């Protein structure tokens, strides 16, 4: 379901490594979040010249306190404004939005792979998987140690945690995907979940396919509205009927079955996508 629009007061903004952890008072949203869902936040305050909402995966949502948390990396004017808002500032937040990760029908062994702040939705997912009887192994990677988020928490919610950094400043030097095959190859991996940059999702999805393990990924497409009306957030996805369509990642995603995403065609328009022929010369 689509979320509600609320005025969420900022409780706190805390730097965490290279990121900022923003805590918001948003009971209507906190009441109904599932892992993988996101919120769309208006930025810039009154009279802002930045019209487009910024979307963030929910890190925590606590129905008892009414609070939600997001992890924000500063990489543009909108996020620069957001990470400097004072406590008490009301933010215009819409959520929870998007299709969440789905839990396996039967308990098994889940491998969770996260790149950078892509780990944000993984902790809640890990808890729910474990509560349902699954074993959970987490792999977290980032460029450098300050870009890893939630390693200690990962140790609390998972049976094992592997850490990689590109520069070797924490964990094993290398890519997060380097650590994945060992987990998939060991007997019993029954599901894979991934969140992070597109290239990482693609690599994880392809590995899962090799080991024939179902894989769900939460994609990061740029979204203007977050609620399904603008058609900016699309990517080519194969439907149950076997035909590919340009699909909105904000409402049909952000979580997709990795095997349905046409990774190499993201950012292009494959000729066999439904309706591509109607584009003519344009």
């Amino acid at each position, binding site marked *: *379901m*689509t*979320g*509600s*629009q*609320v*005025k969420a007061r900022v409780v706190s903004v805390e730097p965490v490594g290279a990121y900022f952890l923003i805590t918001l008072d948003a009971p209507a949203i906190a009441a109904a979040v599932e892992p993988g869902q996101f919120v769309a936040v*208006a930025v810039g305050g*009154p*009279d802002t*010249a*930045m*019209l*487009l*909402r910024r979307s963030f995966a929910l890190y925590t949502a606590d129905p008892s306190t009414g609070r939600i948390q997001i992890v924000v990396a500063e990489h543009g004017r*909108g996020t620069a404004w957001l990470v400097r808002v004072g406590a008490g500032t*009301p*933010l*215009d937040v*819409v959520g929870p939005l998007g299709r969440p990760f789905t839990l396996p029908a039967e308990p098994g062994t889940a491998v969770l792979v996260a790149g950078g702040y892509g780990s944000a939705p993984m902790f809640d997912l890990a808890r729910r998987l474990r509560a349902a009887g699954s074993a959970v192994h987490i792999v977290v990677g980032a460029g450098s140690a300050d870009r890893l988020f939630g390693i200690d928490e990962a140790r609390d919610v998972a049976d094992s945690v592997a850490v990689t950094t590109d520069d070797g400043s924490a964990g094993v030097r290398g890519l997060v995907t380097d650590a994945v095959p060992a987990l998939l190859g060991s007997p019993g991996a029954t599901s894979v979940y991934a969140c992070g940059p597109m290239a990482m999702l693609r690599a994880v999805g392809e590995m899962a396919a090799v080991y024939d393990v179902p894989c769900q990924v939460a994609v990061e*497409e*740029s979204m*203007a*509205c977050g*609620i*399904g*009306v*603008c*058609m*900016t*957030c*699309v*990517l080519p996805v194969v439907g149950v009927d076997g035909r590919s*369509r*340009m699909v909105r990642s904000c*409402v049909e995603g952000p979580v997709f079955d990795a095997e349905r995403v046409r990774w190499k065609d*993201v*950012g*292009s*328009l494959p000729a066999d*996508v*439904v*309706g*591509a*022929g*109607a*584009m*003519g*010369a*344009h």
Partner: protein
Amino acid sequence: MNPVTIHDHECGIGEIPGTHTHDHGEAGQRVDLATTLAGVTLPNPVLTASGCSAAGRELAPFMDVSDLGAVVTKSVMLRPRSGRATPRMAETPSGMLNSIGLQGPGIDAFLEHDLPWLAERGARAVVSIAGGTVEEFAELARRLVGVPALVLLEVNISCPNVASRGQVFACDPLAAADVVRAVKAEANGVPVFAKLSPDVTDIVAIAQSCVDAGADGLSMINTLLGMLIDTETMRPVLAGVTGGLSGPAIRPVAVRCVWQVHAALPDVPILGMGGILTGLDALQFLLAGASAVSVGTAVFHDPSAPTRVLSELRAELTRRGVRRLSDVVGAAHREPQR
């Protein structure tokens, strides 16, 4: 669900306590917001904009779409259309560029899934149609006439015309007239509005040409063609290279277009749009000569924008002692009485 917005700050000029009443006007008389577009009476003048609210369904968590003057649906074509590659969007100062490329399910799916949803809710639909050829426009009109919820056809002649290599019908008075005439011939009494592009030398000439061809009214403006270059990659940001500029950045251009066309064609109803974020923005368009307005890009910023604009407009009119909406339409053209 009862969404709460924080847009009280956007209600415009300083509030006068007790007059800024939003939905429940406490002032004695209520302003009559009804408006008439070419014989079609709408309960109020605030509509969505084509391509900015899909077919209305996604707005349901934020409003009752039947509270709006009408829902203007995303331009529909005969066949399903994939739209362009990504990136399709870029934020610009007080606006955005888009190059969606008219992604849509095609008329069959639209008739099967989208319009019935609006009809069930008692919402009014202005259906925007787009074609690559004059015949496609006519065929779309034929398919739509008589369908429940439809109150008006908006002809998006500002979309790419494949036949003339990227030109748009709305840039050529003769091509624009051909489309309008063909749609009008099929419309069977349903009013036909032509949607104009501001990217022309003389918008009045195009407007006149559409009206001469039988257009019952005009929607203006569509987006302006724009472009953004990424200075890191040194390449255009949009996959489609150029895109349509919308949002408050274009509002002065839009108000000017409405003003010029209303001055030249005062009897032709205008659906005005371009950068409306607040009730006061909507009021500018009405004063310039629009009988109703569409709220487009603002929905991306605030999904409840259309109903918020409506309640702000109601409050602003009430505050000015306006009794009937029609009293303000085109009022900026009239010299003040001394």
